């Protein structure tokens, strides 16, 4: 089957897709967008977080065909965003694998809650796992981006 969708404002098409492919697989292997990371493949880690029609989702849990005609924004679409800059400045990155997902999830939080409390940050990022930082600098980065 073929999948047509808008990714970061651009019309994209993937041909001869196996019906069981996830949106994450389509983004990475068909469209060459490697920012969204593939780790757990079960929605536990948040590393593949993207926007689907404006909603924060794990792209590994979206079937490719479900994205047909929809609008997807990936970490590449947030290039230069203040959240990205805050993660750099706060030193909220160690190995960097979880960072794209955390930036998309933080972007979503700040759209809904421009000045979140620590508790709101922890709740909003509860679906994004980082095994390096211990989260302290990630929370600093969110506050920095919210300023």
């Amino acid at each position: 089957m073929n999948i047509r969708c808008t990714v970061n404002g651009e019309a994209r098409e993937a041909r001869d897709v196996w019906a069981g492919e996830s949106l994450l697989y389509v983004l990475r292997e068909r469209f060459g967008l490697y920012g969204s990371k593939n780790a757990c493949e079960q929605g536990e880690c948040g590393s593949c977080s993207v926007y689907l029609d404006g909603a924060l989702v794990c792209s590994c849990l979206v079937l490719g065909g479900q994205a047909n005609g929809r609008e997807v924004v990936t970490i590449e679409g947030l290039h230069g965003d203040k959240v990205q800059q805050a993660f750099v400045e706060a030193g909220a990155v160690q190995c960097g694998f979880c960072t794209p997902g955390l930036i998309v999830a933080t972007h979503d939080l700040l759209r809904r809650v421009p000045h979140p409390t620590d508790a709101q940050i922890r709740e909003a990022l509860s679906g994004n796992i980082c095994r390096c930082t211990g989260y302290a600098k990630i929370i600093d980065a969110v506050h920095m981006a919210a300023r």
Partner: protein
Amino acid sequence: MEFHQPGSWSEALQIKAAHPEATPIAGGTDVMVEINLDHRRPSEIIDLTRVRELTEWGMDDGMLRIGAGVTYTRLIDELGDRLPGLAIASRTVGSPQIRNRGTVGGNLGTASPAGDAHPPLLAADALVELASTSGSRRVPVREFFTGPKRSAMRGDELIAAFLIESAQGPQQFSKVGTRNAMVIAVCSFAIALDGGRRRVGTGIGSAGPTPIRATEAEEFMQGVLEDENLWDRQTEVGDSALTRFGELVALAARPIDDVRGTAAYRRHALAVLARRCFTWAWDEFRR
């Protein structure tokens, strides 16, 4: 694997009738895990995310009728005031990403004993609306679950909606897990008080082959509240009655030892959760 993407409910039902073995998918939070990890490879998939009817909710003969495709995020935002018990449970589901996609319809379809929506649906006596090309039927949720990941749904049916009354009194839910997010319940408990009908409703999750109602515990507590005229007096419920209520909830469970916890732990925790949830709800009723 064949992918079907019906644009309407009638089309979805026709596809299901023609392909009873087809797996429906909505938020994908269960189905995609199985496909990604190659635990299961369905021959046919029906994507229900284009069926607008499933995303709607409204009143139906005095009950809320909520489309099977309404996400947890929308339930919390749009119905949290009318369905506090289900909203509390919904907030414990996964993460924001999961709640933006996951649906109660999907929870019912998977019919896991650990599904977070099930205890509050049991406690509030909800109905599940199943539909096929030959018509629709409404099954009480207490009769819906027939075994681990098994339900009363036939192969040609899809879940259209669930029906539930707006809360008739305080409702509570509590869940035990290793952290506060992204957790499959070790065990969970829901309670719904109905001051008008003088009813106590319960639901136990993740402590038996199916979600379970603690019928004896309900009857016991209704008896205590009636005999001591507590619905009218609105005074505290005695310690021994609370302890007995917890014991009866624990006895209603049929837990096993598994990777998430032991049967003994689950029974112990359920007694604590039951007492705690009842006390929270009763304190709210007395206010």
